[in-house]
C-alpha cells in the first residue's frame, strides 16, 4: 500500500489510511479543531492523489477505528455483503468515482452494490468529488421506503413538518402543524422535538398529533424526537407512535455519550415492529451531523466526514424510514460558514444515499455561523436538484425552541414549483382533495388553515 505522492517534485507522505482520509477533506473548521486537517491546498491534493490509488479492499482492511475497539466497525465488517463487495473490492477509489459517475451505472445497480460498501468507502469517494459529482450520483441513487406513505420516488420532494414549541404547549404545536399541512408540508413526518424529555410528555404530544392526522385523514407519520429510551417508555404507556427517533453518531464511544448502543437500538427496533402504528416496513427515524463525535472527544483522530459516513453505516441496520443530517446546527467550530455547511450537506446526502438510506437534510444555520439567508436558500435548491428525499419545514424557518434557522412552510411549495417536484403520491392526492395543491400549483385553499381542522 502506497501512502505517498509527489506534486511538482515535492514528496508528500502520510502516516496511515486514516491520515490520508483526513487530509483529503475539503476545508472544515472541525478538522482544524481536531488538528488533523491538511496544512494547505497542495497537501490536500497530495492526499487525494494517494487516496485515488487505494483500493476499496484496502479501505475495508483499514477502518478508521479498529475492529477490536468499536462496535460500529464490527457491524460494518461482519454484516458486509460478500457478493456485492466482491464486485467492487478491486477498484481503486479513483476508479470507483468514475464508475459511479458513468451513465451506464444506474440507480438499481447502485442499490445492488450498497450492501457491499463500508462507510469508509463512501467517505473516500466523497473526498474525490466536487459538488456536481456529489449531486450527479446522489440524484441517481434510488431509495424508496414506506410507512403510512411512500417516500423517495423519482420526481418527489417531501418535508418534515417541525412545529416545535419552547414549552410543549400542545395548542401551540397543533396550530403550527395545521398551518404546515395547509402549505403542503409534512408528508415525510410531523416531527416534534420536545422541550421536556419525559415519557408522559412524549405520549401527550403523540396523542394530539395522532388525533389531528385521523380527524383530517392525513396520509403521513408522526414522531416525537425524545431520547429512544423515553420513547420506549411512552410506547409502554400505550400511545400511538408511527416512527421512533434517535440521534446517531459514527463511533461506539460517541454513541455511548448519546446514551445509546447497538443492543439498545436492536431492542427499540424490535419494539417498534411489535407496537409501532404504521403499516411499515420502515419504522425508524435517525438524525446525524458532522462533528458530533469530536464534540464528545470520541472521534479516534478520524475526520468528521468519515465519522459521519459511519453513522449511516449504523443507521442502515434498522431499515429506517427517515435519515437526515442536521448540517448547520452544530456551530462554526465544526462548519464555519456557508460554503462549508453547503459542502457538508451535499457530502452527507451523497454518502447516505450511496449506503442505501432515504437521505433527507435539515439545511440550516445557527446565528453564530457565517451563513446568509440567500446562501441557505441556494443550498435548498442544490439539495432538491440532487434528489434529496426531504427537507424540514417551520414557520418562517425559525425554530422557536432550538433557536436556529431552517426551511420554511413557504419554502417547500416554492422549491416544488422551481424544480418540478411533487410530494409523496398519497399526500399529493390528499392535498388535491383538500384543495391545497392542484397539479403543480397552489390550490384554492393553499395556506388556509381552515382546510385542516
Amino acid at each position, binding site marked *: 500500500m502506497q501512502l505517498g505522492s509527489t506534486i511538482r517534485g515535492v514528496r508528500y507522505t502520510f502516516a496511515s489510511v486514516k491520515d490520508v482520509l483526513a487530509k483529503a477533506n475539503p476545508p472544515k*473548521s472541525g478538522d*482544524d*479543531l481536531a488538528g488533523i486537517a491538511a496544512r494547505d491546498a497542495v497537501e490536500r491534493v497530495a492526499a487525494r492523489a494517494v487516496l485515488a490509488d487505494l483500493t476499496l479492499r484496502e479501505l475495508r482492511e483499514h477502518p478508521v477505528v479498529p475492529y477490536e475497539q468499536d462496535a460500529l466497525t464490527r457491524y460494518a465488517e461482519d454484516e458486509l455483503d460478500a457478493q456485492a463487495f466482491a464486485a467492487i473490492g478491486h477498484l481503486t477509489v479513483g476508479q470507483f468515482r468514475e464508475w459511479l459517475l458513468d451513465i451506464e451505472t444506474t440507480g438499481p445497480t447502485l442499490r445492488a452494490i450498497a450492501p457491499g460498501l463500508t462507510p469508509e468507502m463512501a467517505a473516500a469517494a466523497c473526498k474525490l468529488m466536487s459538488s456536481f459529482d456529489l449531486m450527479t450520483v446522489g440524484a441517481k441513487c434510488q431509495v424508496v421506503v414506506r410507512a403510512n406513505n411512500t417516500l423517495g420516488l423519482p420526481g418527489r420532494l417531501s418535508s418534515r413538518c417541525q*412545529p416545535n*414549541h*419552547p*414549552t410543549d*404547549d400542545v*395548542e*401551540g*404545536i397543533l*396550530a*403550527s402543524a395545521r*398551518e404546515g399541512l395547509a*402549505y403542503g408540508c409534512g408528508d415525510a413526518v410531523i416531527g416534534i422535538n420536545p*422541550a421536556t424529555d419525559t415519557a408522559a410528555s412524549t405520549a401527550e404530544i403523540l396523542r394530539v398529533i395522532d388525533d389531528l392526522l385521523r380527524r383530517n385523514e392525513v396520509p403521513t407519520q408522526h414522531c416525537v424526537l425524545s431520547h429512544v429510551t423515553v420513547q420506549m417508555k411512552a410506547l409502554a404507556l400505550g400511545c400511538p407512535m408511527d416512527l421512533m427517533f434517535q440521534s446517531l453518531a459514527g463511533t461506539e464511544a460517541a454513541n455511548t455519550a448519546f446514551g445509546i448502543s447497538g443492543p439498545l437500538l436492536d431492542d427499540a427496533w424490535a419494539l417498534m415492529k411489535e407496537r409501532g402504528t404504521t403499516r411499515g416496513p420502515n419504522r425508524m427515524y435517525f438524525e446525524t451531523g458532522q462533528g458530533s463525535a469530536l464534540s464528545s472527544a470520541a472521534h479516534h483522530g478520524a475526520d468528521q466526514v468519515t465519522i459521519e459516513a459511519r453513522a449511516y453505516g449504523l443507521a442502515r441496520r434498522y431499515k429506517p424510514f427517515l435519515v437526515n443530517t442536521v448540517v448547520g446546527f452544530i456551530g*462554526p*467550530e465544526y462548519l*464555519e460558514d456557508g460554503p462549508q455547511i453547503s459542502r457538508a450537506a451535499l457530502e452527507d446526502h451523497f454518502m447516505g444515499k450511496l449506503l442505501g438510506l432515504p437521505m433527507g437534510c435539515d439545511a440550516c444555520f*445557527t*446565528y*453564530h455561523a457565517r451563513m446568509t*439567508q440567500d446562501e441557505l436558500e441556494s443550498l435548498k435548491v442544490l439539495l432538491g436538484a440532487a434528489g434529496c428525499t426531504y427537507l424540514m419545514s*417551520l*414557520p*418562517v424557518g*425559525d425554530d*422557536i425552541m432550538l*433557536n*436556529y*434557522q431552517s426551511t420554511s412552510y*413557504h419554502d417547500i*411549495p*416554492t422549491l416544488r*414549483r422551481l424544480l418540478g417536484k411533487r410530494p409523496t403520491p398519497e399526500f399529493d392526492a390528499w392535498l388535491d382533495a383538500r384543495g391545497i395543491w392542484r397539479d403543480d400549483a*397552489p390550490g384554492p385553499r*393553499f*395556506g388556509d*388553515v*381552515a382546510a385542516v381542522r
Partner: protein
Amino acid sequence: MSRTRQLMTALRAQLGASDPQPAPPPVPAIPPPPARVYSPRPERSAFAAEAARHTTALLGIGHVGTRYATDVVLQFQAELAVAHAAVGAELPDGWAAANGFVGLTTRVASHREFLLRPDLGRRLSDAALAELRARCTKGVDVQLIVADGLSAVACMATGKQLHDAVARACGARGLGVGTPVAARFARVWLEDEIGQETGAKVAMILLGERPGLGTGDGLSAYVVYDPKLGKTDGDRNMISNIHARGTPPDEAAARLAALAAAMIEQRTSGVTLDLGRLGEVAGGRGYRAPQVRQRLVGG
C-alpha cells in the same frame, strides 16, 4: 451555401423568421394588493390571534404566491440582523472596570478565534490568571462571573444588573459572594478554572446566550458545585433566557441563589442534585420562560 448554413436557414424558417416570442398581452390595470401585515390583527385573522395566545411561531402570516408578503420579509430581516449584531458585538476594553468588575481575558486572541476555538475560551490567559490570584478573595461560597459568551449585547445590557441581583439574593441566604469578575471571549466552562483558583464552593457564570431570531438579549446562567477543570455539562444546572421579556433578572436571581444554596447543602450539582427538595423556586434542571415576540419594523 454550406451544409451547416443550409440547416440553420431551414431551422430558422421552421421556427419563424422574426421575433422568437409573440407580442406580450396588453398592459393590465394593477391595483395595490390587499395589506398583508406581520402579526395579523385579530380582525383580519382569527387563527393568527388564537395561535398567538399559544405560540411565538410566526403563524397566519399569509402568502403572496408561495412567498412572504413584503412586511413579513422586513420583519424577518430585522430579526436576523438583531441576532447577527448580537453575535458580532464585542465587549469593549474597559467595560469591566467601568462596571466594578475585575476584567479577565481568556486564551482567545480574536473574535473569529472565539467562534472557532471553544477550547481556548474555556481557559484564562496567563495575565488573567495572575490578576485573579492577586485581586480576588479566596474560599468564598459563591464565585460569580459575568461574561460575553455568544452575545456581548446581552452581557452589556443585563450582566451588571443580574450580577448584583444574584449577589443580593445570595447575601439574603447568608452565602458569601466572591470578588466581582467579568471575562471577555468566555465560554461556559471557564467557570471551572476561575472557581478552582478562588477555591469557591460554587461557581456561577452569567453569560450571553446564542441568539435566536430577533433575540440577542438573553443571558444564561450555569452553576456548578466544587468547580475545577474536568467538570462536564452533566455537572451543571442552568437557567436560560434571562432578560426583561423572558425570565426577569430579579426572578432569575432568586432561583439561582436557591440553586447555589441547595448545591452547598447537598454537596453536589447537575444530574445528581435533588431538585424535588427545592420546590417551585428552582423550576427544573434547565428552566426557560416563554418569550414575547416583538414587532421590530415600524410602529
